[in-house]
Every structure is written in C-alpha cells, then in structure tokens.
C-alpha cells in the first residue's frame, strides 16, 4: 500500500539519512554542521507528520536555532579546518569503525524491523501534540521532572559561564 503519506515519509527519511551520513563523512567541520542543520529540519517536518506540532516547532527553535548556532559559533571561533589524511596509521580505524557500525545496524535492525511491519494503528488522540495538551500534562503529572530540568538548566548556565571566564 503505497499511500501518499508513505511516499512523503520515504522522501523525508531518505534526505534525513543522507544528511546524517554527510555529518560523518565530510572532512570539514562546517559542512558537517550544515548537514546537521538540514537533518534537524527534516526531523522537524517528520514530527509535524506525526501530529506533534509543539515538538516540531520546539525542534526548530531549540535544536536548530540555539544548539546549531552554538556549534557554528564555536567552529568559527576555533577556526577548525579540514582534517588531513596524514599517514597510514589511522586508516584501519575508519574501516573497523565502519564495519562495527554496519554490524550494530544489522544487530539492532534484525531484532526490531520484522516486528514493526504492521505498525499503522494510530492510537493517540488527534490533538495530543498541541501546546494545550502538552502544557496540561507537563504541569500536572510531570511537574517534578519539570522543576528538576529547570535546576539542570541553571547548573548548565552557571557551568558554561564558569568555563568561559579567563581568570578564576
């Protein structure tokens, strides 16, 4: 059953996987960062097709808008150039790493993929992704993790400011 949604998902998944392979494969750091930005945008569109609107927008704003901007600033400030294939010493590491990655994919995929063939029973409400539903759940059932996350973000801010100071 080749429905239009399946075709859309296939296109988005192909672009996303290509972008993630591009993150690993490109030699220069800036091209990897731009591939990761493309990957995050594709993921945001995938979240929209899953009817999770709030998380799709949050993905664009938080991941692409804040985290990737941080990455690009660090790459710019540190002036990291392209990696050079200097000698034969670390050629074997790449091949072994690739082989281990293929093995990991086969191990995980062989367990998961046959069980998920008939996986199209939508059992969530139509509006489970709206901000109202998420806010209601976040502030009633998950308020303790919410407070812990705010403490964690405070610790992160203090830590990063401490790391950026020049003199202790």
């Amino acid at each position: 059953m080749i429905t239009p949604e399946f075709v859309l998902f296939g296109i988005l998944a192909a672009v996303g996987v290509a972008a993630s392979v591009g993150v690993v494969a490109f030699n220069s750091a800036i091209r990897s960062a731009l591939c990761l930005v493309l990957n995050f945008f594709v993921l945001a569109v995938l979240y929209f097709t899953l009817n999770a609107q709030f998380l799709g927008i949050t993905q664009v704003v938080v991941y692409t808008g804040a985290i990737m901007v941080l990455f690009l600033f660090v790459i710019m400030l540190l002036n990291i150039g392209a990696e050079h294939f200097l000698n034969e010493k670390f050629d074997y590491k790449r091949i072994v790493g690739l082989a281990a990655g293929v093995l990991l994919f086969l191990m995980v995929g062989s367990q998961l993929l046959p069980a998920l063939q008939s996986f199209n029973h939508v059992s969530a409400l139509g509006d489970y992704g709206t901000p109202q539903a998420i806010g209601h759940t976040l502030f009633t059932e998950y308020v303790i993790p919410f407070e812990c996350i705010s403490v964690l973000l405070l610790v992160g801010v203090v830590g990063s400011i401490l790391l950026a100071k020049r003199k202790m």
Partner: protein
Amino acid sequence: MFTVGAVGVVIRRNPVVVFMCIELMLNAVNLTFLTFARYQLVNPTGTDIAAQRSAMAGQMMVIFVMAVAAAEVAVGLGIIMTIFRARHEVDVDDLNLLRG
C-alpha cells in the same frame, strides 16, 4: 540514524564533529520516542486512557531529552573551548591524560 551517529563518534577525530554525532544520536532517539508515542502496538484488552497517557509520556520524554541536550551542548562546548585555549590543537586522540 543512531548507528550513523555512533560510527561518527568513534571515527572522527575533531571533537566538535564528535559532539555533533552525539546530537545526531539524541535526535534519533527523540524520533523513536515520538513514533512509538503515536503508533502504539494494538492491545485488545487495554483501555484508551492508558494509550493516551503513554502518548503524552512519549512527548514528555522528548521534551526532557531536548532540554538535557541543550544543557550538555552548552557545557560541552565550554569544555572544548577551554581545552583549545590551553593547547591550540584539534585532535581527540591526543587528549589521553586520563589513560591509566
């Protein structure tokens, strides 16, 4: 996506790119959480309330993973910049002071 990120963490020597592959793995996990929140395995004896609760639980998990990832990116990039201020080098294979 998770496998690609794991391969990238092992292979690449530039620490900023290693960090980006860690973010790739986190996003793959986010996608898995959301997919299982929406499409759940059909349970004939289960109620509808449990399905709604687990759908919302999946989204909560994704929100918390996003917040944790934002905090660790800030701290991790600060660590990388501090290391580079001291050494002016770009290689993770040379950072072996913790080796026993």
